[in-house]
């Protein structure tokens, strides 16, 4: 345990004094302030003279404003934070020849990788909590609404999901830093995985669904069961992307009014009308039930990723050359 703590402490010091961390925090503060002020002022305008809708506070995080919402921002750029923090964690020590020295000290070998991962997760947590607090603080000033306990709970769950999500990417990048000797290669490999999961898998899911369960265009109309099948296949495949997993989970948890049935083709106009008329928020517990599988999957892939990383590192030969 002592070894873990010492390495953890040094890694934290390294992170805090690195230019990398400075850049990440600058980006985060900038985005936080921009989003909070844009969205906050938008809400202020819209809700003038009206009764405040429920969960107005959460709009700060989900409302897209002119550019993108905070939730979308983290879904998209969060992985980059993880990759940024981890892509050179092991191979930098290898290149500077400090790894063999480190391992010849009386510490357990897994302390090195555990401490590095934990330090990364701690930094991620600090950054995320900071930005949520910035947005909340500015938002409260701008829209004049204090979050209720349920909103705070939802935010906490959102934060946990985000930390897990970014930790997964941290794990991926540490894994590559164990496998590849060169820091440039591990950075590129991590980015490639990010691009694959975030963009291509979504596109690929559409193509795959078209191939596996095509929707016939001929005849009088579309067959509803074919549409459902198509949608199911597409969703199943896209759930392999951590980004989809995360986006689904967080939008559900932060937007109690969100409907999970989205394929509007199947809804008649009256149905749609009634849906928009009678909007009732989902209770926190029900939202949680919906996202539990997502959260569990996020935990699972993060652990799986770190587990592989751990195994590879423990079995690797430590040669100085």
């Amino acid at each position, binding site marked *: 345990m*002592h*070894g873990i703590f*010492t*390495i953890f*402490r*040094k890694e934290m010091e390294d992170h805090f004094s690195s230019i990398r961390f400075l850049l990440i925090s600058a980006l985060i503060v900038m985005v936080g302030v921009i989003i909070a002020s844009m969205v906050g002022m938008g809400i202020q305008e819209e809700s003038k003279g009206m009764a405040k809708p429920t969960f107005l506070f959460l709009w700060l995080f989900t409302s897209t404003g002119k550019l993108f919402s905070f939730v979308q921002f983290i879904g998209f750029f969060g992985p980059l934070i993880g990759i940024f923090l981890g892509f050179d964690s092991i191979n930098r*020590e290898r290149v*500077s*020849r*400090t*790894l*063999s*020295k*480190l*391992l*010849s*000290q*009386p*510490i*357990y070998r897994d302390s090195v990788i555990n401490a590095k991962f934990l330090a990364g997760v701690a930094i991620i947590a600090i950054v995320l909590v900071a930005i949520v607090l910035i947005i909340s603080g500015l938002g409260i000033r701008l829209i004049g609404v204090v979050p209720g306990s349920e909103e705070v709970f939802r935010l906490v769950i959102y934060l946990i999901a985000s930390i897990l999500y970014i930790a997964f990417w941290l794990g991926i990048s540490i894994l590559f830093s164990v496998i590849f000797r060169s820091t440039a290669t591990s950075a590129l490999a991590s980015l490639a995985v990010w691009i694959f999961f975030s963009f291509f898998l979504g596109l690929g899911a559409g193509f795959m669904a078209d191939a596996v369960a095509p929707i016939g265009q001929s005849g009088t109309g579309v067959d509803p069961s074919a549409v459902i099948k198509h949608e199911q296949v597409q969703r199943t495949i896209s759930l392999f992307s951590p980004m989809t997993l995360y986006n689904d989970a967080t939008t559900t948890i932060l937007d109690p009014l969100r409907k999970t049935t989205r394929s509007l083709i199947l809804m008649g106009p009256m149905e749609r009308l009634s849906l928009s008329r009678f909007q009732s928020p989902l209770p926190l517990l029900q939202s949680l039930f919906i996202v539990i599988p997502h959260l569990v999957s996020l935990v699972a892939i993060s652990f799986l990723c770190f587990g592989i990383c751990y195994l590879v590192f423990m079995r690797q*030969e*430590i*040669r*100085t*050359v």
Partner: protein
Amino acid sequence: MENQAIIEAEGLTKKYGHQIVVNHLNLQIREGEVFGFLGPNGAGKTTTLLMFLGLTEPTSGKVSVIGFDPTRDPFHVKEKVGYLPENVGFYDDMDARQNLQYIARLNRIPDKISGGRIDESLKVVDLIEEVGKKVGTYSKGMRQRLGIAEVLIKEPKLIFLDEPTIGLDPDGTNRMLDLIHSLSREKNITIFLSSHLLDQVQRICDRVGIMIKGNLVAMGPIEELAKKKLGVDKEDYTLEEIYMKYFKEA
């Protein structure tokens, strides 16, 4: 206790796939001696050191270092054994004291004690003047000496030095050799030194072992090996002559 074995290896073997890197090594190092481990590049010297430290698992054979089995109990071995790898690395953006402090903390030495020890070992290696500079600005010789200081922090019984003088200029080499010699004489630390620079080894080692292609072909005091290989009469032998004889035979 002069003749107690501090390292004992029996039939120590390491294979990478089918390639035998270290072949049935039998070796005994006595407490307090300076042992030179010689051999050409790629003879398996570093692999042997890594097995002694528990950083690499032997394929077969037994080894005991300061009374512990490094494969099963690397923790205890690493507590009391210092290792200076070839071309040791440091955290270049930290100064000498910070580097040593980190190593001291990893060795569970409380900061109160380590402060004094760091100063002391920096004095031993003559780097106390440069303590505030970032290690990235150090010359090769200074880095190597800092490596020795780092090893001394844990007050080791035994130090493994892997090619400690490689790449140093003549002055740096001399300082390094004097330093190693004084550690052995003044602090009674057992030194196990791997090298292929023979004249240097000859200057400071009590005994040598010659390793060629994974086999330990000779071991003993230099005079003894000289008698065996060059004949009794020859008086001004060099280690190089002995070594070349073994090398040609192997």
